[in-house]
Every structure is written in structure tokens, then in C-alpha cells.
């Protein structure tokens, strides 16, 4: 099981600044391991960020996003105390969600 999603969200004058770190190997499928074989591709393909059911950000990723994908974005209409929800799925069908309260 992967490590939890790390989320930092702060609202200022109604605008939330959100930083998300999703621990994930993001294997390209092109990397050789010690024995010379290729490590199978394994990378996050979809990320969805919602607040109270409203989509505030989403991404469709390829394997050229670096290991442990980091995202920073801003959205308006945010209030302190709202719950920000992050969900990812990867190329092997694994999924993970995380939540944080907007500070």
C-alpha cells in the first residue's frame, strides 16, 4: 500500500492555494532493474480534486510526470474548514483517496 496523499490547502480572501504530494513510483516501463530486466510501467493516470462535490481541478497523467507527483494550483470560492478531497487511480487499477480541511 502506498503512503498517504499529503495535502496542504490554505484559503486567503476566498482563494485557496493547494499543494498535493502523491507518493507513487511513477514507473515509466522503460527503466532497467539490477538484473537488466525492465521494471513494468506503473504510474498515476487520473487525479481528481473536489470540494463539497464540486470539481476544482483534475489531471490526466502520462509517465512523464515525475515520481511522487506534486501539484500546486489555486481556486476561488474557498472557505476555511471546507474539506478538500483528492482521488487518484493508476495504470494498474490501484486507487487512493485523501482529504484535508482547508486552513
Amino acid at each position: 500500500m502506498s503512503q498517504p496523499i499529503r495535502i496542504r490547502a490554505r484559503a486567503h480572501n476566498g482563494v485557496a492555494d493547494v499543494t498535493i504530494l502523491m507518493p507513487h513510483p511513477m514507473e515509466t516501463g522503460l527503466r532497467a532493474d539490477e538484473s537488466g530486466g525492465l521494471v513494468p510501467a506503473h504510474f498515476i493516470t487520473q487525479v481528481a480534486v473536489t470540494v463539497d462535490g464540486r470539481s476544482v481541478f483534475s489531471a490526466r497523467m502520462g509517465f512523464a510526470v515525475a515520481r511522487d507527483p506534486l501539484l500546486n494550483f489555486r481556486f476561488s470560492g474557498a472557505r476555511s474548514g471546507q474539506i478538500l478531497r483528492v482521488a487518484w487511480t493508476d495504470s494498474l487499477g490501484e486507487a487512493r483517496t485523501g482529504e484535508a480541511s482547508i486552513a
Partner: protein
Amino acid sequence: MAACMQTALPINRRRLLHAAGAVCGAIAPGAGRSAGAAPVPDEALAFAARNFADAITALGAVPTASALITLDLPQVAENGALVPIAVTSRMAGTREILIVVDGNPQPLAVRFTIPDGTEPYVATRIRMAQSGTVYAAVRTDDGLYATARTAQVTVGGCG
């Protein structure tokens, strides 16, 4: 076709013109952007593309160069496995931000959807297999626009 050439990005012109030929052959002659013709972008095809021209073709339009897109990228990336990048659009009606890396085995790195109320800005970290050009593309209601920057990569990040 001539319109495509005039609106193609100046950087890496040859590659874009190659893509322009493919796209313009498929839509109305003279249409330099997707306005009116509205070719449907094929996301799966764009991610499946293994060279730059195929990726651009799959995005549905040859991007028009725009000074209203800011691409922050280090000029020298010592580690191609971890290249910080930020894209800011000042174009009205920005719906998507895409990052395309010429020279990567999978050129389309990521596509961000920007809903109403979300600023047309994103920062993330990408991989670069080799030195080359990175394109920040923005899809608005009336077309696809892009700006480009080059980065020198000391150690490639895809192998």
C-alpha cells in the same frame, strides 16, 4: 496550409510544420486553429503518441503561439527525472493546460482540466529524457495556444 505555417510556433518550426501538414490535410484548408472546424481531440491517442508530431495531431489542432502563456522551466535541469515546471495562462476561457515534451518517449506529459473558478495556473514536476523543447499548451473555447522553452538536461530522466 499557408495560414498554418504563419501561426505555427517559431521554435522547432520544422516539427510543427510537419504536424501542421497532417492536421490541415484533415480539416478545412487555411484553418490555422480549431475555431469553427472543431476537430475532436483524442486524449487516448495523444497519450499513446510516441513522437511529437503524432501527439500534436492527436490534440486536434496545431497550437498558435501566444505570449499570454508563461512557462517557468529551469534553463538547465541537472536531473531530468525531476524538472520543476509551472504554467500560467492569461488567456480568457482557459479550459485545459497541457505539457508536451519534445524528445520524450511519451511527449504528452500531462493534461490539466481547469474548471470555472480555478485559476489558469499549475505547477508540477516532470521528467525529461534529454535536452529539448517543452511546450505549455492552453485550450480555450476557441482554440489551442502554446508557448515553448528549451532546457538543457544533464542526466536524462526516463531510463
